[in-house]
């Protein structure tokens, strides 16, 4: 469908070449391509895969938006109402000490990964050292009371799984914070600029809040849709049987499930149930699935590149992936 319309479009430049020289053919090809793609889309709209793709994409967005709203409200409120000195007083001045404090703080506060990205951004804007904000970003969705209870329910009679998840996730968050202290470069991190109107003291704080909210929500929401679309594509295209090839080899099972966690983008409250259903994989591999999932997945990479820039998201996510896998192997091996 698409190809035929593109093929016919190739003849058009010759005819239309005289009057406005460059842009007209490109525009026509574009219009025809879009028309062809639309026609093709209408044809397959109700095919099982497309239907499933739509449902999964919408489901991830619907599931993420309340947490995004919560995170954006909190971050806009931090920006509009909380003075900077509060954070400098609460956190230790030394970044290396602030990292574990922020990591543990993240574990206490229930949050979802969609909420933690804007909050971490506004913490940095408010002068919290990036390393501590990043440790918070990683630990808040990965270990909090809600997630731990869900894990205990998903693995009945295996409290060691809950403990392993707590330890491995905290370890990853703190190590990543320290890695940022040691090797991080400020130019990788495009600090969130936020909406206009900073430094204009005369402005109404409520209006400031509304603008901050609208800007952050729209930006993060757009990237949430990008991540949801990518995850839905993998959900439809990649058959789960591909994974079973790796189930038998213990050393391939761990990276295989870690990669699955990245592409599936299941929220951290639910990933324990998915991990429990991945029978045939070693406990360490399932642990890696639960440690990696809330810290690195397609939707998070999209959200992070929206908030902190692509250069940051790529470096940070790949480093976190490696650290999380190593932490899972370490803790999973120690607790066996």
């Amino acid at each position, binding site marked *: 469908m698409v190809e035929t319309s593109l093929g016919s479009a190739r003849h058009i430049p010759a005819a239309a070449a005289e009057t406005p020289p460059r842009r007209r053919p490109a525009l026509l090809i574009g219009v025809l391509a879009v028309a062809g793609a639309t026609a093709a889309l209408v044809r397959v709209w109700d095919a*099982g895969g497309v*239907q*499933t793709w*739509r*449902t*999964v*994409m*919408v*489901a*991830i*967005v*619907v*599931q993420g*938006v*309340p*947490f995004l*709203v919560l995170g954006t409200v909190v971050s806009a409120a931090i920006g509009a109402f909380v003075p900077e000195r509060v954070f400098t007083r609460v956190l230790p001045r030394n970044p290396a000490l602030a990292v574990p404090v922020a990591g543990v703080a993240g574990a206490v506060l229930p949050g979802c990964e969609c909420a933690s990205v804007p909050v971490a951004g506004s913490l940095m804007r408010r002068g919290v050292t990036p390393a501590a904000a990043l440790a918070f970003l990683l630990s808040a969705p990965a270990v909090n009371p809600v997630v731990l209870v*869900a894990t205990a329910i*998903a693995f*009945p009679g295996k409290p060691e799984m809950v403990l392993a998840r707590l330890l491995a996730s905290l370890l990853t968050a703190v190590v990543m914070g320290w890695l940022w202290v040691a090797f991080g470069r400020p130019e990788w991190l495009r600090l969130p*600029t936020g*909406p*206009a*109107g900073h430094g*204009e003291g*005369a*402005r109404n704080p409520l*209006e400031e809040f*509304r*603008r901050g*909210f*609208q800007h952050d*929500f*729209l*930006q993060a*929401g*757009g*990237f*949430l*849709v*990008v991540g*949801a679309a990518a995850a*839905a594509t993998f*959900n439809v295209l990649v*058959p*789960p049987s591909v994974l079973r090839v790796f189930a038998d080899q213990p050393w391939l099972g761990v990276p295989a499930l870690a990669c699955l966690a990245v592409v*599936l*983008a*299941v*929220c951290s*409250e*639910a*990933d324990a*149930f*998915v991990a*429990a*259903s*991945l*029978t045939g994989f070693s406990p360490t591999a399932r642990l890696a699935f639960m440690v990696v999932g809330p810290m690195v997945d397609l939707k998070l990479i999209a959200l992070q590149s*929206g908030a902190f820039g692509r250069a940051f998201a790529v470096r940070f996510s790949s480093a976190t992936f490696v650290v999380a896998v190593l932490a899972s192997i370490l803790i999973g091996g120690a607790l066996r």
Partner: protein
Amino acid sequence: MKATFRGLAPSLLVALVGAALLRITVGSDVFLQYVKEGLRLPLIASGTVLVGLGIAGVARRLTERRREPVMRFGRDAEGNAVWHRPAEHDGHEHDGPGHEHGHDHGHGPRVAWLLAAPAVLLLCLTPPPLGSFSANRDATDAVVEPAAYADIAPSAPGQGAQKAQNAQDTAGASVSVPTPMSLTEFIGRSRDPQKSLAGRKVRLTGFVSPGAQAGEWYLNRLVVSCCAADARRLRVLVHATGPAPATDSWVDLTGTWRPTPDVPATSAPRIDVADRHAVPQPRAPYRDLPPSDG
């Protein structure tokens, strides 16, 4: 006019997303096709916040515009009176007192427009719940924890599984009321060493997906613990005469378990169907509940 719309658009988009969330939760159970039931209140709350802030943004923008002069009186080089529009000379739209940054959030981040896609889908073309496509590709099976099951039918004449198994036919005939059962319970009982299902008539509800051979199809449920992205399946292989019901349709069926000793325990249990009829899709498609009477 265009400038007005560009300034309003981000706020309208926020309100649109909020309206979509309210549309699937208030007075409607559509949201259950995508997420778990527990998210209803957060969805309503965030929908309200979004609609409220979106409308506030629109109102703010409109009042700001009204305060701005539409036409300004002046004189040209020859001293003739002329009216000109300040907005047109500015180039881009005005944005309240903070002009220097106004450009940035007058448009909003461009990626934000992607949010319109799920919002419009929810408002106009509500995507259906996951169905046979997800169930029939080799999806991950939900874990059914082995449990100690109570004896089934209160009206069963012979107590104890052993007896029921020996007198399979008579028990099946005398128990007139089939036991409604969730697929989780049916699958769990089919692996029960006590064979508590033997000879019992049960009622199951699920949606249909095609089987590999004629006279065989699957009765499925998908269960979800957060959103549809984490769906896992439960399924029973149905043996029935006659053509299979339409794929993805929901049926309520009555039948007896068919033991298969030589098949691995992880494969779908089988049922011989005596009776079946179509039912509407349940309110919460991802909750594996036994069929309700009615």
